[in-house]
């Protein structure tokens, strides 16, 4: 909005970012992670990553969340890639 003050920059944190082959897979991952209580949310695909789908799953970096994510989606979908990014 004109005249609106810009928010101060948010501190960047290391996140594990999962890319997908299709929007359907991204939505499935969101649903499965929601059911399994895996922390995180869908974000626009960061420009650092090239992937089929424009959506990605971002979650706290660490072995725990990564394992929880893979367990949640196992048998339903295969992520295109998992990256560590400062977001």
């Amino acid at each position, binding site marked *: 909005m004109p005249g609106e003050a810009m928010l101060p920059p948010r501190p960047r944190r290391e996140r594990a970012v999962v890319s997908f082959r*299709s*929007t359907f*897979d991204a*939505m499935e991952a*969101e649903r499965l992670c929601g059911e399994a209580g895996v922390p995180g949310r869908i974000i626009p695909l960061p420009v650092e990553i090239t992937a*089929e*789908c*424009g*959506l990605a799953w971002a979650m706290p970096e660490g072995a725990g969340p990564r394992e929880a994510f893979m367990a949640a989606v196992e048998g339903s979908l295969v992520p295109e890639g998992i990256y560590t990014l400062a977001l």
Partner: protein
Amino acid sequence: MIYLNNAATTIQKPPEVARAVIEAMAGAGSSSRGASADDLAAARAVAGTRSRLARLIGFDHPERVAFTLNATMALNTAIFGLLRPGDHVITTDFEHNSVLRPLNELSRRGAIELDHLPADASGRLRMEELDGLFRPGTRAVVATHASNLTGAVTDAAALARAAHSHGALFILDASQSLGCLPVDMGAIGADVLCFTGHKALMGPQGTGGLVVSPQVELAPLVHGGTGVKSAEPFQPESYPEHLEAGTMNAQGLAGLSAALDYLLALGVERVAEHEEGLRRRFLDGLRGLPAIVYGEHDGHPHTGVVALNLAGLDSSAVADRLAYEHGVATRAGLHCAPRMHAALGTLDRGAVRFSFGWYTTAADVDAALEALDAIAREVA
């Protein structure tokens, strides 16, 4: 109005369908074109609809459920995307123009050669002639699961087996069956299944699609934005985006999703049983009337459809009187099924089609019978 034109579209839907559409109108953004809460709501609606549709037909690859505007667009996608110059194709006399016209167009262009499995004068498909139609270059059999004119159900599994035994693919038009007959894509052996959302599935118009087996690759019919792989110059190879260019009908698909929830909870078998009961009641009631009923064979499976003519009357005159004097909506004419009418000998006068749905009642059927009786008495 008593609406007995459910083979064209269902007017009465589960109330959840309209609610879902309205909610999506108020809160759904653009599927696959953003990660805001509103855009994700649209993406969730579309993805959920894929999963429900796949579950309804026992299909394990929901990402290969691609949505289109209707069954016609789905059939065009399958036919133009699969067939190559020099291919030979077998279809049937039961087909709707949504199958016949794209095939005729390819034939007119000289791209394919086309044969039709004939229906006899009683409206029965001459399955015994099927094997003789195959040639070394036969690429596909394209057939409906049920005649939209008589409701006679085809032996889709036998058509698929024959196609596969000759190295051909089987494209199934499930427009007249999905939602009112149990459909198991794997058990039938369909390589591509095309459907509409607004008939027996009881979803909104503007929804439909095709389900593509993993071993089948189709060239897309429509090319454009998908929200994914935007730097690529061509349509992505990954499904469903491969066959889905342009903004999705998220509101319509939200409605279809609600309809699928309703049907999955209800069980399509119950719909089939209900419609068969209505059809039997209607046929029983017709016995005392001067009606010529088409395509009825004892023991042969049917959808909830009956086609007839009253002796001495044009089909459009009967349908008009049913609607405007008795409040009963039917469909007269040729029903976009010219070859079936030719087989039955009704190309000149058409037929009056009564088609029942999940919300049709026995009282509706009785009212239709009374109306037919009144019309028949007046002209006797």
